[in-house]
């Protein structure tokens, strides 16, 4: 897991160096490998204000940027990552340079902003609001979010993919004008092949976590996931790093080594976005034997599929990204569960990873990550007799997350999980 820890810090350093050398930097939102491969192929360094929000929260500088964004007129219920970066951008513009206190060297002034309509309105509205401070143009990637039933109707997937490909072609054209250079299509093709392979290997690691005891706790997963979710650097090297993780986790599986280094008493699923500023919370739960063996699908690669028949790299990108949002739709339709991409997979995870309980983090400033949690809580109980503990918190505002209060509920929830083991047995469920 070790090399992944440096990935986050390296990224910011690289972008600062690039900016100093006059090379372009993009501020991006997580775009499910739709825009990142194209930016990589065009030689653009990427930083992610979402990720940077978590960094600032962990390093203790978020409160200052949150206050600044409030002074600028942004509202307190809006995304903490957004407000952190809006406050940061306001201060950077005022100073004419990166603020001194910015952790990891800060985010360099961008040449462009890359938003998306995927998963969250904030992912383009927030970047649109950034125009107050940054004169960088904003491109918004379009990603269809068809409903379960609608997506399976004749012709729908095809026109959705056509739409995405056309949009990506326009995005390439935009970048060529902005950067005054042409796309290297061979390089792009290789990059997307590398992305697909990287995620295939990473997915194999995630599959290993079905073993008992769980060989890889969510904490380790969160360290490693950045190479997949936020593409960076030498993708072949990161794929090799994932292969080493696979070997390490496989060793644990074969030797029944538990990922929490103590007895696994309870297996849990976590959704959706963790309190990155307070991850020690999970260590405290691990000491009680809580092993988070799987987490919500927002951090996972798409269900594997074969893209080899598609020669157009843009079509491969589109299909890969579309798979993230719709790969589970056939199963969901069969189960008459019409919920979306952050909801339905949790049912499968709870079953396949044999979870005793779920811990859901309801975020006061992130509706996309929280909207469906009550629904999933209900379905987990009704279909699988898996209970859920809901803990309120926030992306970056430490004042809104009370780990002590959450820990005080642990004991009672353990009793609940123990009880529902019996209930599941009586209901004929496998675990």
């Amino acid at each position: 897991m070790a090399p992944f820890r440096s990935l986050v810090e390296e990224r910011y350093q690289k972008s600062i160096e690039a900016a100093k050398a006059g090379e372009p930097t993009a501020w991006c939102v997580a775009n499910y490998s739709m825009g990142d491969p194209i930016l990589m192929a065009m030689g653009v360094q990427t930083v992610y204000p979402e990720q940077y929000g978590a960094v600032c929260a962990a390093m203790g500088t978020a409160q200052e940027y949150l206050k600044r964004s409030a002074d600028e007129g942004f509202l307190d219920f809006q995304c903490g990552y957004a407000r952190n970066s809006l406050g940061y951008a306001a201060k950077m513009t005022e100073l004419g340079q990166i603020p001194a206190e910015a952790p990891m060297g800060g985010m360099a002034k961008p040449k462009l902003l890359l938003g998306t309509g995927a998963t969250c309105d904030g992912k383009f509205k927030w970047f649109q609001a950034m125009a107050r401070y940054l004169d960088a143009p904003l491109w918004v990637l379009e990603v269809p979010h068809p409903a379960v039933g609608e997506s399976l109707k004749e012709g729908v997937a095809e026109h959705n993919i056509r739409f995405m490909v056309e949009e990506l072609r326009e995005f390439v054209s935009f970048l060529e004008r902005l950067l005054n250079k042409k796309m290297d299509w061979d390089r792009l093709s290789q990059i997307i092949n590398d992305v697909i392979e990287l995620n295939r290997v990473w997915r194999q690691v995630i599959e290993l976590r079905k073993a008992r005891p769980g060989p890889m706790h969510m904490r380790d997963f969160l360290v490693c996931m950045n190479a997949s979710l936020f593409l960076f650097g030498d993708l072949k090297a990161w794929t090799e790093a994932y292969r080493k993780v696979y070997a390490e986790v496989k060793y644990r599986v074969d030797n029944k080594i538990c990922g929490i280094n103590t007895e696994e008493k309870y297996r849990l699923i976590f959704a959706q976005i963790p309190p990155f500023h307070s991850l020690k919370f999970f260590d405290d739960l691990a000491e009680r034997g809580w092993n988070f063996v799987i987490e919500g699908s927002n951090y996972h690669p798409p269900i594997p599929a074969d893209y080899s028949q598609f020669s157009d790299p843009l079509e491969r990108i589109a299909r890969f990204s579309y798979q993230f949002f719709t790969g589970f739709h056939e199963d969901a339709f069969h189960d008459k569960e019409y919920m979306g991409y952050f909801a339905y997979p949790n049912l499968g995870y709870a079953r396949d990873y044999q979870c005793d309980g779920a811990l859901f983090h309801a975020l006061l400033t992130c509706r996309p990550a929280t909207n469906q949690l009550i629904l999933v809580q209900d379905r987990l109980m009704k279909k699988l007799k898996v209970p859920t503990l809901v803990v309120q918190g926030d992306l970056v505002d430490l004042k809104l997350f009370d780990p002590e209060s959450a820990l005080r509920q642990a004991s009672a929830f353990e009793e609940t999980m123990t009880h529902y083991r019996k209930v599941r047995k009586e209901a004929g469920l496998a675990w």
Partner: protein
Amino acid sequence: MVVKTQSKGLTRVQEIYQDRPHRARELKAGGKKVMGYMCIYPVLEMLTALDMVPYGILGDIKEPITKADSCLPNMVCPFVRSCLDLGLKGKYDFLDGVALAHTCDVIEKTAHIWHIYLDPSYFHFIDVPHTTHKAAQKQFKELLKDFQKSLESFTGKQLTPPVLKKAIQAHNQQRALVRELYDLRKPDPPLISGTETLKVMVALMSLPVNEGINLLKETIAEVKQRKNGPQKKSARLLVWGSIIDNISLFEMIESLDANIVIDDTCVGSRAYFPDVELTEDPLDGLAHRYLVELKCPRTFREAEIGATKKDYLTDLESRFGYLGEYAKDWKANGVILQALRYCDTHGYEVPGIKDYLNHIGLPNIYIEHDYSEAALAPLKTRVQAFLEVIRG
């Protein structure tokens, strides 16, 4: 309250406003299919063309939200929670189905929750693109074709271009009458209040288009002739923002020294001002109007698509310039920006709109509310203070 079918104009408006489902239930009993929709993106012309009654799903500010808490967290849009709550309580049991759209994150998720928990006989979700790019317009047309197929399958009828064009003409006629109604607030004092206008808009969402047209004609004729319209007041306000489907907020504002002369909200001008161009293939006109012409913040707009340079003021002008035009045409001397708590799409607009309004010298204030009448009392004080600013 029983809606007396012989009532006309503002009396009928009031009756419908107070008992919205009444006419829809009558029509359903008479054999019509009633199709629920939320927001301004489901294409109503397609419902009308298949002889269905489009029925706007709204909330109820007076009904405590209880059942919706079992499937939606309480830190999401209270209007959407209220709509779902009413659905779960059976208040929309007269609907034959629902057509919902990807208008914002919360409605997207709530659409699926509605599908799961209410299990309507007909459900369709239109995944509206987020930009106005050419490819997005093409995509939206494809999505409308999907919608058309599902409606045809449900009704057993074919939706032919001539029939659809007729429906477009009817809805355009209704829109023209709404604009004529709004023009009645250009004089000083306005001939009809913002509160009364809102009631008319809510009533229109409860009727088939031809009945809405007749209601508008009656109302316009009545308002033009009456002598007891609104009083002249110091403030002529433009109200912008999240959905307002209840008169409480407007009543509060107009109880003060202010007339609301124009709005930009979805039960208001936003839904009715743009027409559908009658194109050879009617789906082209519909796709363009609903994706490009509707000015809801859920759609990403920019001064020039794909521009490699950005100028903030140019961007603001392209996004909000129409508000300046409204203010000019309706002689508004102040703007109230209002949003429901947890409304992200409108919330992110607020600093930018304020910058724009400050740039053109229009006094403005932002107020936030939580879709409850209890929230209005402290807001009244703030609005009063704002009106002092306008009075100078």
